[in-house]
């Protein structure tokens, strides 16, 4: 039987030509999922965690690793909201736009941010310090409106509270 030798060719490249060590971590993740094509979403989650966003090179690498057409990988990466194909800022401010947050003024928080620091949802400050994103309900409706600062959820946010919380991230770009 030659099945075993066929199997050995699974990882197409031992390391990425760039020598970037992060690809090794990605390799390990694919291996843990036994290069299963149906684990694509899991692997993209991990890739985004490692690289911060899904650059083209990463998508290509995953496509080759899982033996999937690039169109399929690209299709999945663009379909889901949590995957980002653009680099995001060093810090992230997520304003929850669930209905409870909305009726309690989350929309106004976004307006304030636009007026005060000229940032709209999906944008990153010019110095790359902070990205502003919106979420479709993070399920913390009891403390609406909620804002997530670098993974930390704070409830009952006001205009002033948001501006104070993000102040340290803005550096000296704002006068």
């Amino acid at each position, binding site marked *: 039987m030659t099945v075993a030798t066929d199997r050995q060719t699974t990882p197409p490249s031992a390391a990425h030509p760039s020598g970037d060590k992060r690809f090794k971590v990605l390799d390990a993740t694919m291996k843990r999922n036994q290069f*299963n*094509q*149906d*684990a*694509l*979403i*899991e692997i*993209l*989650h991990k890739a985004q965690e490692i690289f911060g966003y899904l650059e083209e090179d990463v998508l290509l690498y995953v496509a080759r690793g899982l033996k999937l057409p690039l169109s*399929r990988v690209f*299709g*999945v990466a663009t*379909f*889901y*909201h*949590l*995957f980002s194909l653009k680099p995001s800022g060093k810090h992230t401010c997520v304003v929850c*736009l*669930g*209905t*409870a947050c*909305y*009726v*309690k003024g989350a*929309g106004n928080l976004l307006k304030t941010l636009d007026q005060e620091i000229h940032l709209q949802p999906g944008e990153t400050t010019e110095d790359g310090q902070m990205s502003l994103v919106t*979420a*479709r*309900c*993070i*399920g*913390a*409706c*009891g*403390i*609406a409106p*909620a804002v997530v600062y670098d993974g*930390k*959820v*704070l*409830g*009952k946010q006001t205009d002033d509270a948001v501006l104070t919380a993000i102040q340290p991230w803005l550096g000296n770009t704002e006068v």
Partner: protein
Amino acid sequence: MDIKELREIAAKSREKQAKIRIRCCSAAGCLSSEGEAVKKNLTTAIAEAGLGDKVEVCGVGCMKFCGRGPLVAVDDRNQLYEFVTPGQVGDIVKKLQEPDGIPETGLISGDPHHPFYALQRNIVLENSGQIDPESIDEYIALGGYEQLYKAIYEMTPEKVITEMNKSGLRGRGGGGYPTGLKWATVAKMPGQQKYVICNADEGDPGAFMDRSVLESDPHRILEGMAIAAYAVGANHGYIYVRAEYPLAIQRLQKAIQQAKRYGLMGTQIFDSPIDFKVEIRVGAGAFVCGEETALIASVEGKRGTPRPRPPYPAQSGLWASPTLINNVETYANVVPIIREGGDWYGAIGTEKSKGTKVFALTGKVENAGLIEVPMGTTVRQVVQEMGGGVPDGGQVKAVQTGGPSGGCIPADKLDTPIEYDTLLALGTMMGSGGMIVMDETTNMVDVAQFYMDFCKSESCGKCIPCRAGTVQLYDLLTRFLEGEATQEDLIKLENLCHMVKETSLCGLGMSAPNPVISTLRYFRHEYEELLKA
């Protein structure tokens, strides 16, 4: 693991709990208002006061009154504290040592007999806020995994399904399809390989019931799924959770590991020939993945687009095998139904809607939080008595249920009992259980536009009515809000709503116009007032 060992674990765990328990809410809501620091400080303070052998500080699941968190309960004297700050733990410990000694502290005592609690009937949430969700022993102490044992050793799969049928339980994800019937369909399908899936992709904005159940009592879901798997003949399960719920994912993972270690999951459960393996699949942010065929595509690692039904997943689902998909809350109801019997469950609620329903009560309401009420409770009881109405003497204008797929209940219909069919008659739906109170300051056209914005960006794009229709509806609503709309636009808006509803491929598109239709039905004057003179 056999039943004797299980009961030994239960007895040991109960013995350990003989101390006075201080329960700290460790669900997402309270954790985001310094709940973690409260728990940590309490643990230290108890140790410093030398009370370690008498008092136990325990992080528990959701204690329901989310709007007043962090919540701390002291068990032996039925004392509940609200809005606890990390600095107040000293006072709690002092009160514990001398209950009557210190009259004035900044502690805010909650009332455990408040209508918010008193009118609840907890079946799904019976363990929530009582046990540490990260401890399988505490779950077992309350009789956990006994029903799985009972199902495997004392009941045939047919008998399990009979009990589910008797209970009259209907799917809690919103559609309300009879659960027993769904199980029976999958059980009847030929084939070796079958799957069970737990839909934990709670995407409705303004809903957090599933999140709370997963975070508070993960073993309950696992046990429910295992019983379902036994009944339909599946040996493999998936829990599809939203990536937005990291705490729920973490607790589920832990629960699966613990159950595996005890031999309650995996191969040869309770030393029987029954196997059941569970995996977690993390979503990546797509509302449409709540739709079962889209969810299946996503579990397979593809774009989460729905496909036409039939064939239904019960016939051809995951990897074309028969697949049972139920919502989190549906699985959470399985254990009590097996324990108490289908007839017991069927006696709760109303004729056509049995049992209880969990709602996430939020918005412009005094007491926001998680409530579980018997079906048939009126909306007014929930919003006014339990919820305490609108804060600062405001008036309820409408109650929105069912998320973007639902609609509004206007103030004059608040006496409607909560049932699948009565809500449908009002032009809204049960949905997964979000209940958002809106007051006089809420502009209904603005709310309709908010939902349409949601549906427009969540449409998967596969079918044209939904992809293009939601964009057109959104643009029309914008014209209203900008004062540009004419009478003709109003007619166009209505016609388009019905067109999108009738011609879309899946539930998302079919229900996307609902917020517009329902606000047009009850608040038409608000649209008319915005018309261009």
